C-alpha cells in the first residue's frame, strides 16, 4: 500500500518514500513526519504543531519511535514528529504500532493536565478543545497527580478584544508564533520560566493587531478567549455555516456559528487558495451591526412628511406610483454591500424595468478613466485570467498603487507577508509615506505626493514576474490607470484591481456601471446591447448613463426625478453634503435597507431587506473568485432579499424581472457569460500634476480608510472598536517643523466642508508638503470635509 502526496507542483521523481507504521508514503522532500502520517490517516496528537506556523517542538505531545532514520540507524529516544523531516527509507512507528510512542504521548498528556484547571464545564473551548479531545483519545482516564496546581489570577486582557487565562495555557507558543510570524505584530511573547512561563505583553501597550482573533481560534485550549463571545454559547449548541465574509473584497471563507437565531461568533474558514486559515478582526468580530435598535423590519412609507410602517402591498403601490411618475428619469445607486445576485438584479432592473443606464455601485470618488480601465482590464475576466492570491506569494515583486493592503484588504497583507518571509518577494509601495503595514512587509517606498502617482508609475521598472495591485483610490489620481495600462503593456507585468468592499467586484461584473452591462459588455457597443437584449428579451437602453456623483448632482439640480438606493453612507462620497442634498431634492426616493440610515431618513418608501447572514448568494473577490454566501439565520424579521423586492416592483410595474430569488438571478447571470466581443478601450489620460500649494499652511491631502474606524458595519462591536487605531494626522518632520507643531500636539486641517483637529504624528518617511488624515475618522468620514486626496487643504497648529 502506498500513498502519494497531492503536492501539485512536485514531480514524482522528487518524492521520497518513508514507512509509517509499515505503510509506505511518498512525500516531497522536507515533509514533516507528522504531515506524512496525516496522509495515511494516522492522527498523531499535537498541540504546538500548526501547519502554517514554523515548527517549534515545544509541547512534545507528538512523540514517535524512529527505528530507522533511513540510514540503517535508529534514534535511541522517541522523536517529536512535528520537527522531524522525512528522510528516504525512514521507518516511523506512531502510537498505532509502537507502545513506546503511545506511552510517551500519554505521559506528556498527563503532564499537560497536572497544572491545567480542568474547568471545562465553564470554559468557552469545552466541547471543541484539542486538549479535551486528545485527553480523551490519548490520555489516561484518571490523573495520578495529587499535588498543588499552579494558579494565576484570571483572566487578564491582552487587548480589549482578547482575554488570557494563564492557568489554562499549555504554552504551545501558537499565539506568539502567529503574532510574530504571520501578522508581524509581536506584541505578545512568552515570559518568565519553568511552570511560571506565561504569555506576556507590555503593560502599557496592548496586543495591537488586526489579526488578533486568529490566536483565539488556533489556541489548543481555552487560554485565549474573545471578550464578546465569552460565556455566550457552548460549541455543541452552535450551528455552523460555511460562508463568505462581507468585510472586504478578499472574500475570506468564514465559519459562522449561530444559536437561537443569532450569530454568536465567526471563525476563519479553511480556504487555502484565499485566506488559508486566517481572517482579520473586522471579519471575525464585526457582525453586530444588524442587531441594533435601528433594524428595519417592516416597509415604511412617507405620509405627511413622516415615515410610517406600511404593509408590503401598500409600500409596493407607493413605490410604483413614484417610479411611474419618474419614468426613466431615475438613478440607481447600489453601494458595495450587495451580493452578485442582488447587484445583477439592480443592473437588470435599471435597464429593463426602468429603462436607464443611470446605475453606479461606486459610492465614492470615481472617474471615467477608472470606468474605462475596469471595462478594458477587469470586467468579464474569470478566475485564473488575472492575478490570484497564490501569485502574490510567488511573484518576485509586488507594486502597490493607491492601496494599503493591511487597511484595505487585510488578507492580501497576510499573503504578501508570507511571500516576503518564505519566497523572497519584494514589495514596493507608491504612497506618500511608508505605513506601518508596509514596514511589516519590509517594503520599499516609492514616494509620491497624492495626485502625482501617474508620473511615478510611468518611471517604474517591471517585468512579467511583477504584480501590480491597484486600489480603488486610484480613481482619484488622474492618469494613474492609464499609466498602469501602459506599464503592463510595456513590461508584461500583471495588474489586479482590489476594490474595498465585498460587493464591488460582483457589482462590476453584474454591470452596475453607467457604461458597462453584465459580463463586461460595453453600453456603447451595439453588438453587446443586442447580445444582451436577445438574452433578456427586452430592450437595453443605449443612452450613456450617469455616474453616482452625476446622478446625485442631477437630482439636486432637479434634472433627475427619482432614486433607487441599495445602501451607502453620504460620507462615502467625496462631498457628503451635496450627496444629502441630492437625496433630499430627488422627487422620489426608494431605499432598500436593513437598518435606518441617512438615506432611509430621506426616502419616500423604504423596503426592509435581509442582512448578509439571512440570505444566500455570492461575493466575487478581487481575484474574480466566487465565494459562496450561505444563509446562516433562517428565521428572519423581514424575509426579503433585494432581488425579491425588485421582482415585486417589476411585477407591479407590469414587467418581468425574470427571477425572484438569488439562485434564479445567478443562473441567468451564469448563462449570459462574459462578453467575447470588443472591450472598452484602455484609458489614455494625461498624468495629473501637483495642485497649487502654499507651503506650509496649504498642503496636499493624503488619506485612506483604515480597517477599523468610523463605519456603520462595525456598530455594536464595542470590543473590536476599542482596538481601532486612534485618529491622528501625519506630517513629515520638515513640514511639521515649518508649521511649528510638535508630535502629539493638535493639528487642524480645513477644507471646503469643514475642519478637523487631530493629534499630530511625525512620520519620518512622509514626503514634504503632504498631510495625511484617516478616511474614516471615528464618527465622521472624509466626505464631511468635502475634500479628496490630492486636493489642497489648509493646515495649522492648534485647534480650529
Amino acid at each position: 500500500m502506498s500513498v502519494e502526496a497531492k503536492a501539485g507542483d512536485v514531480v514524482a521523481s522528487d518524492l521520497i518514500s518513508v514507512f509509517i507504521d509499515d505503510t509506505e508514503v511518498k512525500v516531497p522532500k522536507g515533509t514533516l513526519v507528522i504531515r506524512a502520517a496525516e496522509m495515511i490517516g494516522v492522527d498523531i496528537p499535537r498541540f504546538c504543531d500548526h501547519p502554517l506556523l514554523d515548527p517549534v517542538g515545544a509541547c512534545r505531545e507528538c512523540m514517535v519511535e524512529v527505528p530507522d532514520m533511513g540510514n540503517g540507524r535508529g534514534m535511541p529516544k522517541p522523536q517529536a514528529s512535528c520537527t522531524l523531516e522525512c528522510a528516504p527509507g525512514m521507518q516511523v512507528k506512531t502510537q498505532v504500532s509502537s507502545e513506546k510512542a503511545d506511552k510517551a504521548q500519554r505521559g506528556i498528556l498527563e503532564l499537560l493536565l497536572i497544572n491545567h484547571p480542568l474547568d471545562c464545564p465553564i470554559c468557552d473551548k469545552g466541547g471543541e478543545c484539542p486538549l479535551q479531545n486528545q485527553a480523551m483519545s490519548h490520555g489516561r482516564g484518571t490523573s495520578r497527580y495529587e499535588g498543588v496546581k499552579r494558579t494565576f489570577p484570571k483572566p487578564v486582557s491582552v487587548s480589549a478584544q482578547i482575554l488570557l487565562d494563564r492557568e489554562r495555557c499549555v504554552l504551545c507558543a501558537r499565539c506568539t508564533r502567529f503574532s510574530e510570524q504571520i501578522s508581524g505584530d509581536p506584541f505578545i511573547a512568552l515570559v518568565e520560566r519553568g511552570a511560571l512561563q506565561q504569555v506576556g505583553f507590555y503593560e502599557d501597550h496592548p496586543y495591537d493587531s488586526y489579526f488578533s482573533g486568529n490566536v483565539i481560534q488556533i489556541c489548543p485550549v481555552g487560554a485565549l478567549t474573545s471578550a464578546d463571545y465569552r460565556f455566550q454559547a457552548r460549541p455543541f449548541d452552535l450551528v455552523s455555516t460555511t460562508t463568505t465574509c462581507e468585510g472586504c473584497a478578499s472574500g475570506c471563507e468564514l465559519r459562522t456559528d449561530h444559536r437561537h437565531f443569532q450569530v454568536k461568533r465567526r471563525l476563519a474558514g479553511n480556504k487555502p487558495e484565499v485566506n488559508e486559515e486566517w481572517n482579520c478582526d473586522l471579519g471575525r468580530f464585526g457582525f453586530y451591526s444588524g442587531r441594533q435598535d435601528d433594524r428595519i423590519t417592516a416597509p415604511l412609507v412617507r405620509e405627511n412628511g413622516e415615515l410610517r410602517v406600511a404593509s408590503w402591498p401598500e409600500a409596493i403601490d407607493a413605490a410604483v406610483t413614484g417610479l411611474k411618475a419618474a419614468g426613466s428619469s431615475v438613478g440607481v445607486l447600489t453601494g458595495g454591500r450587495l451580493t452578485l445576485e442582488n447587484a445583477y438584479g439592480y443592473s437588470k432592473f435599471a435597464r429593463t424595468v426602468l429603462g436607464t443606464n443611470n446605475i453606479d455601485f461606486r459610492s465614492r470618488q470615481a472617474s471615467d478613466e477608472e470606468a474605462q480601465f475596469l471595462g478594458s482590464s477587469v470586467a468579464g475576466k474569470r478566475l485564473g485570467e488575472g492575478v490570484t492570491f497564490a501569485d502574490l506569494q510567488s511573484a518576485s515583486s509586488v507594486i502597490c498603487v493607491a492601496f494599503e493592503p493591511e487597511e484595505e484588504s487585510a488578507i492580501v497583507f497576510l499573503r504578501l507577508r508570507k511571500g516576503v518571509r518564505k519566497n523572497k518577494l519584494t514589495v514596493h509601495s507608491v504612497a506618500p509615506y511608508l505605513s506601518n503595514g508596509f514596514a511589516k512587509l519590509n517594503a520599499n517606498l516609492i514616494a509620491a505626493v497624492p495626485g502625482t502617482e501617474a508620473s511615478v508609475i510611468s518611471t517604474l521598472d517591471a517585468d512579467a514576474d511583477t504584480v501590480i495591485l491597484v486600489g480603488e483610490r486610484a480613481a482619484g489620481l488622474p492618469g494613474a490607470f492609464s499609466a498602469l495600462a501602459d506599464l503592463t503593456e510595456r513590461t508584461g507585468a500583471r495588474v489586479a484591481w482590489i476594490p474595498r468592499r465585498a460587493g464591488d467586484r460582483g457589482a462590476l461584473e453584474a454591470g452596475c456601471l453607467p457604461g458597462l452591462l453584465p459580463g463586461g459588455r460595453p453600453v456603447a457597443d451595439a453588438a453587446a446591447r443586442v447580445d444582451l437584449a436577445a438574452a433578456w428579451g427586452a430592450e437595453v437602453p443605449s443612452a450613456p448613463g450617469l455616474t453616482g456623483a452625476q446622478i446625485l448632482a442631477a437630482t439636486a439640480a432637479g434634472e433627475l426625478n427619482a432614486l433607487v438606493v441599495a445602501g451607502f453612507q453620504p460620507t462615502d462620497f467625496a462631498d457628503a453634503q451635496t450627496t444629502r442634498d441630492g437625496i433630499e431634492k430627488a422627487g422620489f426616493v426608494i431605499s432598500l435597507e436593513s437598518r435606518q440610515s441617512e438615506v432611509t431618513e430621506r426616502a419616500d418608501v423604504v423596503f426592509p431587506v435581509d442582512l448578509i447572514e439571512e440570505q444566500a448568494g455570492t461575493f466575487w473577490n478581487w481575484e474574480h473568485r466566487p465565494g459562496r454566501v450561505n444563509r446562516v439565520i433562517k428565521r428572519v424579521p423581514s424575509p426579503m432579499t433585494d432581488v425579491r423586492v425588485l421582482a415585486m416592483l417589476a411585477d407591479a410595474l407590469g414587467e418581468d424581472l425574470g427571477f425572484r430569488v438569488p439562485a434564479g438571478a445567478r443562473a441567468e447571470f451564469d448563462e449570459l457569460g462574459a462578453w467575447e466581443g470588443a472591450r472598452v478601450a484602455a484609458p489614455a489620460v494625461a498624468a495629473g500634476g501637483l495642485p497649487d500649494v502654499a507651503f506650509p499652511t496649504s498642503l496636499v491631502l493624503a488619506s485612506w480608510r483604515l480597517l477599523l474606524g468610523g463605519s456603520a458595519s462595525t456598530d455594536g462591536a464595542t470590543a473590536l472598536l476599542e482596538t481601532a487605531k486612534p485618529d491622528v494626522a501625519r506630517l513629515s518632520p520638515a513640514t511639521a517643523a515649518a508649521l511649528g507643531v510638535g508630535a502629539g500636539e493638535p493639528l487642524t486641517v480645513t477644507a471646503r466642508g469643514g475642519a478637523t483637529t487631530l493629534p499630530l504624528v511625525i512620520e519620518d518617511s512622509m514626503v514634504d508638503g503632504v498631510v495625511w488624515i484617516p478616511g474614516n475618522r471615528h464618527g465622521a468620514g472624509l466626505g464631511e470635509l468635502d475634500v479628496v486626496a490630492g486636493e489642497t487643504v489648509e493646515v495649522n497648529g492648534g485647534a480650529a
Partner: protein
Amino acid sequence: MTDLLTPVLSKNWTQERSWKIANYERTGGYQGLKKALKTSPSDVISVVKDSGLRGRGGAGFPTGMKWSFVPQDNPNPKYLVVNADESEPGTCKDMPLLMASPHTLVEGVIISSYAIGCAYAFIYVRGEVAHVIRRLQQAVREAYSAGYAGKNILGSGYDLEIVVHAGAGAYICGEETALLDSLEGRRGQPRLRPPFPAVAGLYASPTVVNNVETISSVPSIIREGASWFSSMGSEKSKGYTLYSLSGHVARPGQFEAPLGITLRQLLELSGGVREGHELKFWTPGGSSTPILTPADIDLPLDYEGMAGAGSMLGTKALQIFDETTSVVRTTLRWVEFYKHESCGKCTPCREGTWWLVQLLRDFEAGKASEGDIEKMLDLCDNIGGKSFCALADGAVACVTSAVKHFRSEFEQGYHTPAWELFPYGRSALFAKQSEGAHA
C-alpha cells in the same frame, strides 16, 4: 602521591598576581599564540585534532572535529563563542581558572579563532560571578594593549575582536543554543536543531561553541605539541583535566590530573572523606550525572569509564557525600534546582520537574504513599528522553540513580521523615547549623 597531578592549566594559579599579563607571559604565556600565527589555520586544527582533545563541558565531543564542521564557503562571518556559564551544581573549575589565570582562556580564544577563521569571539560568562567578569574584562583589555587582540595581531594581518558578555542568571544558558539566543539578546531557550550552530549559530552564522576549559587547553597543545598532550590520559580520553572535589572531603578543591584517574586516587590526594566518616555516594560530574556508590571508586574517571558505569563524566565535578547524608533530601535539593531552572519551553521538563519536587517533598517528609516510588520512576520515564534539551534528562538522572542504589531510603519515606533518619545537622560541613534542622 602528588605525581598523579599534571598541573598545566592550574600551574600558575599560586603565583603572585597570576592574572596579570606580564606574569602570565613570564610562565610561557602567549608563546602558543606566537607559534600558531606562524602556521596555517588548518595546521592548528590538525594539531588539535591529533591531540585528541575532547570537549570539557560535559559531552566530550572531539574539539578538532567540531572546528572542522564549520563550513568555509559560507558567506556569513564565523564566530567563536566560549561557554563560561558554569552553573552545574557541584561544578567549580571554570570560575577558579578565570579568576586565577584569565589569560589562559584569552590566549586559547585567539588561537582557536585564528584556526576557524573568525574575526569576532564572544565569551559568555555566568552573570552572577561579577568578580570573574571584571577580571576577564581586564585580561581582554590587557591582551588588546599587548597587541594580541584587535587589528593585525602581532603583525600577522589577522584581526580579532573579543567580547566579554555577562549572562543574566539562568542555568539553561549553559545549553549552547540557549546561550546563543541569550547572547543575541533574546530569552535563553534552546533552539530547534538542525540547523546546528556550526552551520547557523550566532546571528544565523557558522559558530563554534566551546567550554572554557576546552579552549584554555589549546595554548598548551600548540606550545607543547599534540603528542605531548595525547601522551596523558587514557586510550580514548586524552590529556589532563580539572577535577573539582566538593562535599564531605577533607580538602575540597580543584585537582588537575590526566583523564582516567580514579576517585580513590583523588580522595587520597584530597585527604579522603572527612574524618570519622565514610563515602556513601558521589557524582562524577555534577548533579546531572547519575550518582555512583563506593563500589565505583576504582573506575577510571574518563568519558568511557563513566559511560560504562551507567553515568557520565560530565563536568568532572565530584560531589562527595558521606553516610550522614539523606539521599532523598539530596535528590530533592537537586530536583528543586532543575525545577527552578527549567526554561519552560517544553512540557516534560516544565511540568515534570514541578511534579517531581512535590513527590520528593512527600518522601522527605515521610508522607509518601505506597507505590509512589513506582509512580515517580514512571514519571521519570515519561520525562527522560522526551524533552526538548538535555536539562530534563539531568533532572531525572539523579532521581532514577538514587532509587536504583538506595531504594530502601525512599521506602522509608512512606512513614519516616528524612530529617529523623538523617538528622541534617550531622551532614553539615559547618558546626553552626543546629542538629536536626531542616528546610
